[in-house]
């Protein structure tokens, strides 16, 4: 007599619904990235630095320059000074943006991240959302704090700027927008180079050094390259009146900047998706 072998295991559909286990979705990825973001000191330091430098330096400069701005020899618009500190605070936004990505590669934690959430697009989207939301809120709050702290010094000298003045409110929100864009730009570069120092050097070099030097190039094409550099195109939206007359209009410049960020981010995403972790 032949025995029919009895299979010892029961075949289960691997895609079955296991009771009690909720299929995690994007909100879970987002929550995880939010926890991850706020539980390292570098985030707290960067955010604090952004606020203190951005608001503090604006107040300091308004206090120091108020008299000069009120004098007859003044050749700068007082409105340009109410977001002055953001020019330096943007360094903190770049650091924060780069670290969000590169610290994962530096520590090897990216493997834990991608093992927990295999969808790399979801990980990147969650990171980007946490980073840009934070930088937008902090950047805007910093701009308002600088305005309310610095403007009284200008008012004392009779050169105060009202929120209803042309471009002032836009500069407040624009500061948040520019910080968010800049952070995202640094994060995208971080995805490409996977190294903190390299990402910081590239972004800070591009924004602060190369961005200013290209204006020295001769002719109309030099001027256009200058206008289109990410730091130059994006920053106009963050000030009510610019120190640099060569810049594009605020919203046109910001659109160009966001386009540039999008291209680098797309490249970063393709690298994240295709390369081994």
């Amino acid at each position: 007599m032949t025995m029919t072998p009895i299979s010892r295991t029961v075949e289960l559909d691997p895609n079955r619904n296991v009771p009690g286990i909720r299929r995690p979705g994007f909100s879970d990825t987002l929550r995880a990235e939010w926890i991850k973001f706020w539980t390292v000191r570098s985030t707290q330091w960067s955010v604090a630095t952004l606020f203190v430098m951005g608001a503090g330096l604006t107040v300091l400069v308004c206090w120091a320059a108020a008299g000069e701005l009120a004098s007859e020899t003044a050749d700068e618009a007082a409105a340009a000074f109410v977001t002055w500190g953001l020019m330096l605070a943007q360094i903190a936004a770049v650091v924060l943006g780069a670290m969000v990505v590169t610290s994962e590669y530096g520590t090897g934690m990216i493997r834990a991240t991608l093992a927990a959430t295999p969808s790399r697009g979801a990980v990147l989207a969650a990171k980007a959302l946490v980073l840009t939301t934070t930088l937008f809120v902090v950047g805007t709050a910093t701009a308002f704090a600088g305005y309310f702290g610095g403007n009284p010094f200008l008012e004392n000298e009779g050169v105060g700027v009202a929120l209803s003045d042309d471009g002032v409110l836009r500069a407040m929100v624009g500061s948040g927008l520019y910080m968010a864009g800049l952070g995202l730009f640094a994060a995208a570069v971080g995805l490409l180079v996977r190294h903190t120092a390299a990402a910081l050097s590239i972004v800070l070099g591009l924004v602060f050094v190369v961005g200013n030097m290209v204006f020295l190039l001769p002719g109309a094409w030099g001027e256009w390259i200058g206008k289109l550099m990410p730091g130059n195109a994006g920053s106009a939206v963050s000030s009510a009146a610019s120190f640099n007359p060569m810049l594009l209009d605020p919203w046109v410049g910001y659109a160009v900047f966001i386009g540039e960020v999008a291209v680098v981010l797309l490249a970063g995403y393709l690298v994240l998706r295709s390369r081994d972790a």
Partner: protein
Amino acid sequence: MIVASGLTKTYGSKTAVDGISFTVEPGRVTGFLGPNGAGKSTTMRMVLGLDRPTAGSVTVNGRRYADSPAPLREVGALLEAKAVHPGRSARNHLRWLAATNGIPVGRVDEVLDLVGLTEVARQRVGKFSLGMGQRLGIAVALLGDPRVVVLDEPVNGLDPEGIRWVRNLARRLAAEGRTVFVSSHLMSEMALTADHLVVIGRGRVLADCSMSDFIAEHAASYVLVRSPQRGEVADVLRRHGLDVAVHEDDELRVQGLDAPSIGELVGKNGLYLHELTLVRSSLEDAFMTLTADSVEYHAATPAGIAR
């Protein structure tokens, strides 16, 4: 259950994993053994969908890891201990991981307790010793109460007490019916932990068998016999169908019967024995012999040093 078939990974012209196929069954500890650079970690990264295979495939519970709806609840993995941000506390590290797969925070404290890190849960991981880091890695692996547990070199950096703890944990997880896949480059450790062995060297499977089969096959043993009547003793033993090899001086190496029986056999024939010893080559030796050709970097043995 983990099933790899024809799994291959090449980096440029270098082949790290060369078409390996194996199955890791539930309910037992499967040791994944090989010298450093044999391709163990690369294989494990492919199991977890971190590295993309150049060819072949690997599935966990019947599907690709990345297709799992909640991977941490299905597969728990200890990767290199340093896959942690040193500035984050152990508890926060587990908190964000739990959040990714919708695991309740209560489970975080549970696994911290399980691995004995409750007291240092709020300390920054950067201050942890190697052993504490490994315990945190194991807490990560157990976070989702997974059916499949993958541990890459779990005893690295652990003290003897910690090593025994990992060994017992692996055995207990397997006894609960889970699939346990443990890599190591230490044969001696695997001999105590694993029920089944997959040995790889230079990216190829060298052995895939039960631990007892491996011992029987590779850890050769023989009985060393010395006698002033060497020739007669050899004849007696050969007549009983035993395998007798004559070695230098008066040494006979006998296989096929245990030492007491050989002693009795020789005694019955009225012959003298000067020595009767069971010699067993260690599993470590067996492993070394098996992988000798596949070790990536040999330490040079200076000539003239007595061994």
